[in-house]
């Protein structure tokens, strides 16, 4: 369980996290979704007590992270790939972390096996690929068999097999009753792994909802309408408060109202409809519409 209340973090004149409150519950995978620079990593560092909040509080399993007697048994975190000295072997790195909590070597070897690093455990980390670095970070997070896992962009740099492995691992850990908080800038990744999602943009929480609801919202958003009298219908729909855009093939894209309402309005005003289709926009569309105002760096429109 992670609970943030009014959490803010300012770096110089930049507000990286802006008065954020949320709860991450145990037993489900919670996705933390947002564009790069939205404040995901900063929020996770605040949870781990690596950065001090400018305002607000955040607790893990009921207390600030540093106040736990056995921090590694409470929270395991993968904060960035390769937070490791390249000259040390993977096993030595894990042994050093384990030593702080007197975790035995048998557990070190266990997490090495679990993350598929057995063959490279005695090699120096400097030669590791990004994917192997991620696996080592996950191995470190699992050392203390923690009740809460915080994984910052865990699938970054992993091959397809590794991505699947992380997904299954996250789901299994959540099914065991643990809290799993996993960030990504890819909606599709979160949709396939998480049950619940927090969307963050420019340091603010934009949505705190289940993945299913986010999908429903996305699906309900637009309706395609075709009619012989597009201009007049568009006018009528606008009067009723909908947003209407003409699509290239002569149809209308209607947002802000539902298909049933459009049909009723057309019947009442005597319009002929050739098509009335609720369009499920893709997840990426839903995500983009949520965060479009909150993207830190926009690419120039290519036309």
């Amino acid at each position, binding site marked *: 369980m992670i609970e943030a209340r009014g959490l803010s973090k300012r770096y110089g004149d930049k507000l990286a996290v802006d008065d954020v409150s949320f709860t991450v519950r*145990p*037993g489900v995978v919670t996705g933390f979704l947002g564009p790069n620079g939205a404040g995901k990593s900063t929020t996770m*560092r605040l949870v*781990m*007590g*690596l*950065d*001090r909040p400018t305002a607000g509080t955040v607790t893990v399993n009921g207390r600030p*992270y*540093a106040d*736990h*007697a*056995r*921090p*590694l*048994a409470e*929270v395991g*975190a993968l*904060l*960035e790939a*390769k*937070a*490791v*000295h*390249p*000259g*040390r*072997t993977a096993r*030595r*790195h894990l*042994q*050093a*972390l384990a*030593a*702080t*909590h*007197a*975790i*035995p070597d048998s*557990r070190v070897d266990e997490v090495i096996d679990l993350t598929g690093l057995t063959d490279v455990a005695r090699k120096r980390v400097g030669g590791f690929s990004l994917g192997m670095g991620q696996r080592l970070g996950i191995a*470190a997070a699992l050392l*203390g*068999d923690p*009740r809460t896992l915080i994984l910052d962009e865990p699938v970054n740099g992993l091959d397809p097999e590794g991505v699947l492995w992380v997904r299954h691992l996250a789901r299994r850990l959540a*099914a*065991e*009753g*643990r809290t799993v908080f996993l960030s990504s800038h890819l909606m599709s990744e979160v949709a396939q792994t998480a049950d619940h999602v927090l969307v963050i943009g420019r340091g603010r929480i934009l949505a705190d909802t289940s993945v299913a609801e986010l999908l429903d919202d996305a699906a309900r958003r637009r309706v395609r309408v075709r009619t012989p009298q597009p201009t007049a219908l568009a006018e009528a729909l606008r009067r009723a408060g909908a947003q209407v855009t003409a699509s290239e093939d002569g149809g209308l894209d209607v947002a802000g109202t539902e298909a049933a309402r459009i049909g009723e309005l057309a019947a009442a005003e005597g319009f002929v409809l050739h098509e009335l289709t609720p369009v499920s926009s893709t997840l990426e569309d839903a995500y983009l519409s949520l965060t479009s105002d909150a993207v830190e760096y926009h690419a120039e429109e290519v036309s």
Partner: protein
Amino acid sequence: MTATAASPAAPTSQVPVRPVSFVGALRAEWIKFRSLRSTVWTVLITALLMVGFALMMASLLNTASTEPEMQEGMSSDPGLQALGLTGTTAVTLGYSFAQLAVAVLAALTVTNEYSTGMIRATFSAVPHRLPALWAKLVVVVVATVVVISLALGVAVLVTMPILDSAGLPVDLSDADQVRALVGCVLYLATVAAFSLAVGALLRHTAGAIFTLVALFFVLPIIFQIVVSASDAVWAEWVNKLLPSVAGERIISTGVTPPTLLEPWVGYGVLAGYTVALLVAAGVAWRRRDA
């Protein structure tokens, strides 16, 4: 007894995890220290340099003992006079090079962690942070004491026949020589603590090494020139209060000239700087974002 399945709401761990402790942090830092090849190499080279310089100086003294001109030249050199011309001087001479290795090694144990991102793993494992800093301090200081003591022991043994023939044996009944031998270990251990604190304050490898080289090597040379060229009182004071100039007085067996501090006073000045820097480093270590 049948094992009951853990309820999903409260997973019970089979992994033995003890509360984070200073002893744990100490073991962690010891593993980190010895698991880097660069550390092992630096330590070995430092020890070899200590012994090598001792042999070189002993041979020089031996040659000088048969050549009156050379002997005269050495005994009229003010630097050598302040250092003292005893067997102990020869045995400890390598300290001036060893201090560079010790300083860099100590600073790197901290700055390495910042440059690689390891510091975030360290702070996640020891979230109160200070135990990790003091553990690093203990590891670096103890390692320095052990390595330098061993190197000095070997240096005493291998130079014994040469120094005997030069008529300058290491004399352990001479309080000054004993103080210089112990002082050599003490000085380098203190340089290690000083450098670790500088590393923790500056966090960047290049910045820390630049600062340490400037403090321990460049400024003493510049001020030696300034002091010998002018009789400015302020320059004399700055010079004698420089960390290395003050601290290394404890390794001398000669007569203290008026431009320098007495051995224990000098060492006290270095120790004072070190404590102040460690306190500042501890405060910064706890407070700063990682």
